[in-house]
């Protein structure tokens, strides 16, 4: 982590507006004095920030623990995989899912923060859907959890809209020219989930066994689902 304390304060002051400029000049003064009031390491900085906010009574540490635990242990792509497996197994559920994703996903017990307004888009032999957020990192948390680093990274955000086939190729997925690629840029509060194609050779598999095949990447649209677990990368 190379961000220095001055960078951090500059960015903070930029966010806080021009009114903060006088304070910033003071912090530069401190730099010249070699006085390190704020640690430059993000871990220490965040720790100091948390202590301050707790001391001011602005945050409750237990509430923070609850939020971290929810996304580390409870909410993740297994949720989305169960939705997909059910859609593969139950044609009427699939219809509801494509028509009113919020209600159909709620049927499975999922919903909430950053999944308030869901849209499910279906892949087929002729159509391949791919989801991106070029402006920040919008992603359907209740069904996929928090986004991986690559999804939030500049390479993925910049290139997916202009060169989706190149991006897919980088993920090891080559599509023939007669497949239509649809890229969904999450610029509003709609959150997109790709319903991948059910792989050949999975006839007769239980919903649970199907769910185990469904990967996060296939639900973002950067991979297909393979009939064997070993064939699925992530």
């Amino acid at each position: 982590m190379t961000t220095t304390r001055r960078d951090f304060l500059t960015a903070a002051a930029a966010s806080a507006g021009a009114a903060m400029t006088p304070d910033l000049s003071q912090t530069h003064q401190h730099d010249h004095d070699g006085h390190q009031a704020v640690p430059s390491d993000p871990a220490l900085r965040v720790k100091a920030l948390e202590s301050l906010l707790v001391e001011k009574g602005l945050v409750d540490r237990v509430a923070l623990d609850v939020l971290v635990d929810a996304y580390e242990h409870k909410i993740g792509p297994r949720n989305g995989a169960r939705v997909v497996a059910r859609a593969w197994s139950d044609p009427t559920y699939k219809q509801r899912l494509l028509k009113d994703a919020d209600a159909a996903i709620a049927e499975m017990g999922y919903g909430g923060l950053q999944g308030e307004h869901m849209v499910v888009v279906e892949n087929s032999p002729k159509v391949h859907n791919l989801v991106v957020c070029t402006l920040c990192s919008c992603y359907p948390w209740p069904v996929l959890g928090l986004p991986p680093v690559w999804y939030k990274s500049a390479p993925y955000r910049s290139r997916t809209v202009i060169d989706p086939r190149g991006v897919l190729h980088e993920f090891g997925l080559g599509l023939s020219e007669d497949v239509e690629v649809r890229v969904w840029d999450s610029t509003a509060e709609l959150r997109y989930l790709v319903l991948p194609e059910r792989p050949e050779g999975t006839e007769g598999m239980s919903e649970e066994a199907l769910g185990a095949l469904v990967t996060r990447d296939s639900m973002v649209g950067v991979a297909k689902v393979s009939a064997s677990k070993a064939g699925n990368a992530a």
Partner: protein
Amino acid sequence: MNGVHDMGGMHGMGPIVEDKNEPVFYQEWEGRIFAMNRAMGAWRKWNLDASRHSKEVIPPAEYLRMSYYERWVAGLVGLIVQSGLTTLAEIESGAPASGSMKAVPALTANKAVALVENGVPASRNVNVAARFQVGQRVRARNMHPVGHTRLPRYARGKFGTIDRDHGVFVFPDTNAHFLGEKPQHAYSVRFVARELWGAQAAEKDSVYVDMWDDYLEPA
């Protein structure tokens, strides 16, 4: 604003790097700043759009150099200082200003559970007429606001088709600056890839961009 965050279509950002064994948070502090953003948001001194904007105003060179959650640190500090919840002096010193009152946290553990489970809908149940119909040809406005917008540069001035009407949503361009929610219809607008990128794009491909009424004009 025409910031570096508006990345769609840029070149030179390098290869996509995927970690097959990626944890939810690489380091503990990432989880803490993630949670603090939510907990501080419960004070309702700002909204989701303002929170997004707080990261967009990070100077471009720093934005690109910072890790994702470092941007969250900078954004949150900006928001809490701007809203008066803390002072920059307190952030610097790490201690509350002497004589300051101790608050009672807005987000308790129970409320955190409810927040995760219920979310914060951005739709509004108000009767606003849609200015465009599904199937209608539209043009994204050529506009360059200096404040927050969710209209990406690559789509401005381009022709597309209304693919679906999502209903009425809060309008980010005003909401981010506390100028009102200005609820209006949001749509998925389909742009043929060649309309956006020219002949180098595959003929059949398209990009769907979510857009509000105020981003569009009839074509």
